[in-house]
């Protein structure tokens, strides 16, 4: 029995030590994300910061959208970050989308967006996007937060992580120098990123009563918005999870008690 426990303990130790060693090995690669503890990452009471997400949408629209698509988001879904119906109609109408074929002529004409439309991409196809961006297609942002280790913190780090590389930094860059047209960013794998720093003081103007649009504030806001875009049902999921877990805890207790009682009746112990 004790030997069994010792060996089981060893299995556990191997299980815990190996991955932590692996993580330790990775630590030298990318620095820790400065921004942690997002309100939507909480277990109980998880929620998206609605005001930040709305400001984040403004940044997406005015800055990111020039290069990055957001194919999976329809205007109607912006309800999820607290926009009202008239606001959504106005936002949709501020975009131009390809309409349906004209009933008489069969021509396809552009028209202002409607709530059921998906946010249109700036580029007609990936080839056009590549042609305008030095051959690299700017990735779609709909799922970016879920497609990167670190989630919203990763986005925040990338947006705020640009700086002039030091000699020490360049040692980590393959080839020892930043290629033409690329930029140094310690949070990106390989530390070289094609995207120029997208945020700068004064690039957007927030409406009256909102916080000042510093780079950090904007990074926080747009990261919050993209986190919502990647997982719009998160609040519902975690809220439901709390109820399910509470319910199953009670059920398990009752079932255990029933089992013990039956055991006593039929086995005598």
């Amino acid at each position, binding site marked *: 029995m004790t030997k069994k426990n010792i060996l089981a303990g060893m299995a556990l130790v191997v299980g815990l030590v190996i991955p932590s060693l692996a993580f330790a090995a990775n630590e030298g690669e990318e620095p820790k994300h400065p921004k942690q503890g997002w309100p939507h990452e909480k277990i109980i009471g998880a929620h998206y910061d609605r005001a930040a997400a709305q400001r984040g949408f403004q940044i997406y629209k005015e800055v990111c959208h020039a290069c990055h698509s957001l194919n999976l988001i329809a205007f109607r879904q912006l309800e999820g970050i607290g926009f009202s119906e008239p606001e959504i109609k106005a936002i949709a109408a501020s975009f131009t989308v390809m309409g349906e074929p004209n009933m008489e002529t069969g021509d396809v004409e552009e028209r202002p967006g409607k709530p059921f439309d998906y946010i249109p991409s700036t580029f007609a196809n990936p080839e056009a996007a590549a042609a305008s961006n030095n051959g690299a297609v700017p990735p779609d942002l709909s799922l970016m937060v879920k497609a990167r280790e670190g989630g919203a913190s990763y986005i925040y780090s990338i947006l705020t992580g640009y700086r002039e590389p030091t000699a020490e930094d360049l040692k980590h860059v393959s080839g020892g120098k930043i290629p033409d047209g690329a930029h140094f960013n310690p949070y990106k794998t390989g530390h070289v990123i094609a995207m120029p720093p997208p945020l700068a003081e004064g690039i957007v103007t927030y409406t009256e009563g909102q916080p000042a649009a510093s780079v950090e504030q904007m990074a926080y806001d747009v990261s919050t918005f993209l986190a919502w875009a990647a997982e719009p049902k998160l609040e519902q*999921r975690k809220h*439901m999870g709390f109820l399910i877990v509470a319910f*199953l805890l009670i059920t398990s207790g009752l079932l255990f008690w029933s089992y013990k009682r039956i055991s006593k009746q039929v086995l005598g112990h």
Partner: protein
Amino acid sequence: MTSTRPFEPKNGFVKWFDRQLPLFSVMHGALVAYPTPKNLNYWWSFGSLAGLMLGVQIITGIILAMHYTPHTAMAFASVEHIMRDVNYGWLLRYVHANGASFFFIVVYIHIFRGLYYGSYKAPRELLWMLGLVIYLLMMATAFMGYVLPWGQMSFWGATVITNLFGAIPFVGEDIRTLLWGGFSVDNPTLNRFFSLHYLLPFVIAGVAILHIWALHIPGSNNPLGIDVKGPQDQIDFHPYHTAKDAFMVSLLLLIFFAVVCFAPNYMGHPDNYIQADPLVTPPHIVPEWYYLPFYAILRSIPDKLMGVVAMFAAILILFALPWLDKSKVRSGTFRPIFKQFFWVLVIDVIALGFVGANPPEGAWLIIGRVATAYYFFHFLILLPVLSRVEKTRPLPESISQAVLAKHA
């Protein structure tokens, strides 16, 4: 196994129905009056739990198929359509995706329980082998299911695995083309994988019925590994095991839903939220966690064909286990040396899992080779030798005596 309680229905319809088709008697025999050894522990509940997870997967899967589109241009978006627009779609999809992992967790515990207590030994060899068939079918089903969302890991996982067949001498290339329906993993591949992913769970259900049938002929093994001597050693399945299994089901669901609701992507890979791109390989391709030990075996051998052979041999070797381990004593409880090596095997398989998750270089490569060598050593050399030389501890007279002694 004769039932201790004969089936005597009171309901007229049941009587009439059962005379013509004894469905109710069979169910009664399997779920109510099935006599089990008195001393089964909690590890014996994992068979029922595996059945539950199969049910969860089939039900959620059928519903998801109603909303999913198996086409390379639309598959990725249709999964996101499920996540965003279908009512409770996110719940169904997360339950299905994590359900696969939990099905494997439950089945792995079930398999290791069988390994420890010698449940593969006579007269249960066929039962064991049917279980392995289920396990193989599960691996195939899960592999094809992972391709369906058409993310980067879906695509590259499918590419790596289907390329394994290219290692077969002479006909490998043709088999690979036949699997793909083209010159690479593409739309025809996605389509046929969807078809088979829908079909195989029902085949699993069929083999599971055979597995239960083959269980009910010799009856369950037990932690002492000794044969049942008479009714004093036994207890009916209902109400004792139904109550016990119900508790275990609730406990499993508790953990399962905690993961589904609070960490649904923990066992997934971020790259699978990037749509498949045949021209870009992700920097590090890893299969789902439940394949990692076998993936590690594949990579620990530098020759392509031999790597593939070793990987399949690692699974197929388990079919021969009843004849490799000839020890008359079933339960590891009475086999002091076997017991220790059992835990070494557990550690070995976990270590192989970590090796499979990491790039095949440096220390990982060495650990992988050592662990692979041990895996085969354990089954091919250690167990046959051990079953001859090991001095086992004395077995108790009977189950009821041991139970009484324990609770005296």
